């Protein structure tokens, strides 16, 4: 055996010429294999696979004609994009490949942009220059940004679109959450257009907290805010018992009485739950405040705090003072000044104070605080940055308390410490950080928020849009956010509007809430008589709505003041309220309008004119629209509703002037006679 091997060896390598021949052959073979690296490149493999797949389809000829072999490149020099994704994703532009589930051959779903003008990596990240799957999709040493998981892809819309975008609920919601969960109270977020993101939550001032609640409640709240109210947005700081004790001691000691007076009970809280419930309902408290029902579901609005256990929280005297006039305690509160009388205050406070939870404070036993505890509490309050959100007397709001997040979407992975077992990608890091902030390092101050997985994903999406590209795009390539106005009405009426917090629900001149109709041009729209009556005693216009206008118990002079102001100031430039008469339309026109209303335009699908026959439940009831709205407004509205109130759901029917005039005549004849007569009697 050995001899044979030796003979074979000397046959091949016996002398230099033999060795030369053999080694040259080996060398040739090696060189011949060298092009294989090119020939077997992945993109060629996928292109072959595409042609194979296409061959069996009905539209094979078209697809084969469209197919271009070789590396396909999208080059956008202005933004430094080189994308070669289409080398493998061959069928991206073939709309007939929508039902292909085999990647990389599926077509791209419809988006409002042309693929060739945007490339792929602008939205999906990844390495556009790469022509291998792992280099293009994954995070490598040479490229940190892996392909963005689809659930975060809306973040890329946010790099150019600075405002809300239709079709990207995730991004819009994420941005809203960033502002409304107080993230931006601690983290500065400078937007690419130079503005700084402003918080929309309204954390209460703690300067007078001793007036409002007990130290025990503060303690329990600090330990677990969600135990008090499941919808509380206050995060859990995971404080130790001692720390919670000391902070509560400090807050109580630091509190000063409001306006120097101690609060006194003005009326003994009534214990009539039925009357309380009905007043609570009449006042539409539920539009803003939620209460947990027996089934454990939280029902009601989220403007104000949840009231399920409010009786365990507030002091009765504070509650009554608050109900009497919340502006004394907090001038900026979104809570309206209801002008309740003493009896109503007694009823309502009694009703609310009965909402207690005996478990909440059962285990809270606090000894009187010592100066050391107060001092320690003060230190903790500055350490945890409580003053970033809450106003606390004697403690300044810290600047840049938490890391700035203006470019978090481009944070280099090499600068991130990941948790064990966590995928090493930026979205996973951000989502993980929001989900469990304290898990990353001991001693971190960021508290635990109560968010659903979907909310975490939304916030992550919004944060990922804050990246280098967003900050470096020329303004010509961005879509600016609609500018938010700071409109505040002036004068006596302005004070009244502020007092009743109208703009918590109503939007006026680009500022305010979106719970109730936009009042910017209300003056062109309504008749004075109706307006005064409505302000005194709001009745419902839209039967399908849950949230309604509460009754504020305004005095006549206040109503007049408000009506005058609305009619004088909130006038649309396009509607001259006096251009059309309020009545006196010829009967023929009214009849034509009726036919159009019920026939051609079938308005009864959504509106009720004759409450006996019509059932439409979407738009406002029109039985007395003739005494409510001005004819000019109705006419203009029928012509183009969105021009008067952007975003209203009434479809634009592109009516001719004739049709619109006829329907106006018909609607102006709906004066709600019976009810008015009944009222007169």
């Amino acid at each position, binding site marked *: 055996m050995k001899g044979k091997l030796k003979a074979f060896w000397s046959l091949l390598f016996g*002398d230099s*010429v*033999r060795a*030369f*021949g*053999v*080694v*040259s*052959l080996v*060398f*040739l073979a090696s*060189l*011949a294999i*060298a*092009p294989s690296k*090119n020939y077997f490149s992945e993109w060629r493999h996928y292109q072959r696979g595409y042609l194979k797949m296409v061959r069996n389809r009905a539209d094979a000829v078209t697809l084969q004609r469209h197919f271009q072999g*070789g*590396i396909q*490149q999208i*080059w956008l*020099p202005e933004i430094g994009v080189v994308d*070669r994704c289409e080398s493998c994703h061959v069928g991206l532009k073939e709309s007939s490949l929508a039902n292909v589930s085999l990647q990389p051959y599926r077509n791209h779903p419809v988006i409002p942009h042309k693929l060739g003008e945007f490339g792929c990596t602008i939205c999906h990240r990844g390495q556009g220059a790469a022509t291998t799957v792992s280099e293009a999709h994954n995070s490598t040493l040479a490229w940190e940004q892996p392909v963005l998981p689809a659930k975060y892809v809306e973040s890329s819309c946010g790099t150019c679109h600075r405002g809300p975008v239709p079709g990207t609920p995730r991004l819009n919601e994420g941005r809203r959450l960033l502002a409304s969960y107080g993230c931006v109270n601690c983290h500065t977020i400078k937007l690419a257009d130079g503005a700084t993101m402003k918080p929309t939550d309204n954390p209460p001032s703690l300067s007078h907290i001793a007036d409002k609640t007990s130290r025990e409640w503060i303690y329990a709240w600090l330990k677990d805010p969600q135990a008090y109210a499941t919808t509380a947005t206050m995060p859990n700081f995971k404080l130790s018992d001692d720390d919670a004790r000391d902070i509560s001691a400090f807050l109580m000691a630091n509190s000063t009485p409001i306006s120097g007076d101690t609060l006194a009970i003005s009326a003994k809280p009534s214990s009539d739950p039925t009357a309380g419930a009905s007043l609570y309902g009449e006042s539409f408290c539920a539009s803003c405040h939620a209460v947990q029902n027996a089934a454990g579901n939280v029902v009601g609005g989220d403007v104000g705090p949840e009231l399920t256990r409010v009786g365990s929280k507030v002091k009765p005297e504070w509650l009554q003072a608050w109900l009497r006039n919340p502006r004394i305690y907090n001038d900026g509160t979104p809570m309206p000044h209801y002008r309740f009388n003493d009896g109503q205050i007694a009823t309502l406070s009694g009703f609310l104070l009965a909402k207690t939870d005996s478990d909440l404070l059962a285990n809270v036993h606090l000894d009187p605080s010592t100066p050391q505890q107060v001092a320690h509490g003060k230190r903790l309050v500055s350490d945890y940055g409580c003053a970033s959100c809450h106003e606390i007397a004697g403690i300044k709001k810290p600047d840049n308390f938490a890391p700035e997040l203006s470019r978090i979407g481009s944070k280099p992975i090499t600068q991130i410490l990941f948790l064990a077992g966590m995928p090493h990608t930026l979205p996973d890091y951000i989502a993980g950080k929001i989900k469990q902030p304290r898990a990353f390092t001991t001693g971190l101050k960021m508290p635990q928020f109560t968010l659903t997985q979907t909310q975490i994903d939304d916030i992550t999406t919004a944060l990922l849009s804050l990246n280098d590209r967003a900050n470096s795009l020329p303004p010509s390539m961005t879509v600016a956010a609609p500018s938010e106005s700071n409109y505040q009405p002036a004068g006596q009426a302005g004070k009244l509007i502020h007092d009743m917090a109208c703009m918590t629900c109503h939007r006026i001149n680009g500022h305010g809430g979106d719970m109730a109709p936009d009042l910017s041009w209300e003056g062109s729209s309504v008749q004075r008589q109706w307006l005064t009556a409505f302000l005194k005693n709001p009745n419902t216009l839209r039967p399908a709505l849950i949230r309604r206008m509460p009754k504020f118990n305004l005095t006549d002079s206040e109503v007049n003041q408000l009506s005058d102001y609305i009619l004088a100031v909130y006038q649309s430039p396009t509607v001259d309220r006096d251009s059309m008469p309020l009545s006196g339309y010829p009967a023929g026109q009214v009849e034509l309008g009726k036919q159009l209303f019920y026939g051609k335009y079938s308005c009864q699908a959504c509106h009720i004119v004759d409450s006996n026959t019509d059932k439409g439940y979407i738009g406002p009831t029109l039985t007395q629209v003739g005494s409510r709205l001005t004819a000019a407004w109705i006419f203009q509205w029928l012509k183009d509703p969105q021009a008067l109130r952007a975003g209203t759901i009434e479809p634009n029917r592109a009516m001719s002037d004739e049709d619109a005039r006829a329907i106006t005549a018909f609607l102006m004849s709906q004066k709600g006679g019976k009810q008015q007569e009944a009222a007169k009697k």
Partner: protein
Amino acid sequence: MSDEKKIDIEKDDFSRRQFFLKLGLGSLSIAAAGTAAFAYQYLEPNVLFEPSPIVNVGNPDRYPLDSVTLDANMGIFIIHSAEGFFSLSAVCTHLGCLTAWKPELGIIACPCHGSKFYVSPPAGKRPGDKIEGPAPRPLPWKRMWVNDDGDLLVDRSIDIPPMQFVRV
């Protein structure tokens, strides 16, 4: 061992040596030829960083009637004549210099070797035809069309037969 056999072995050895020599040299020649093919493939770029041949030259309103506009970066003329819009290559067919529009003469002229081309030609001639000079061919017409947004597009890579005007 007889002498004959010895010679045989020597002969055998010699031819075997020759075989290995040829094997080696042959392999190297094939390798050299293969490398040449390999080099050719390598030298041919697979992607080009060049502007797209399709140029958006903007709204037709930008070009008044009877105007000749040179897009020097793209090397094309956009001409709005009474018959309609058309696009001429601005690259001289002689040696590739960029031609220029001479409004005082109403012609396109090449600065390098004096070729001149018609824009509004006499009867029997077409825009782009040579008036004089060494240019071997008339300036080619480029494909032009209007997109959905109403902008004029020109594909510089496609020559079309003359006299195809775009009306807007």
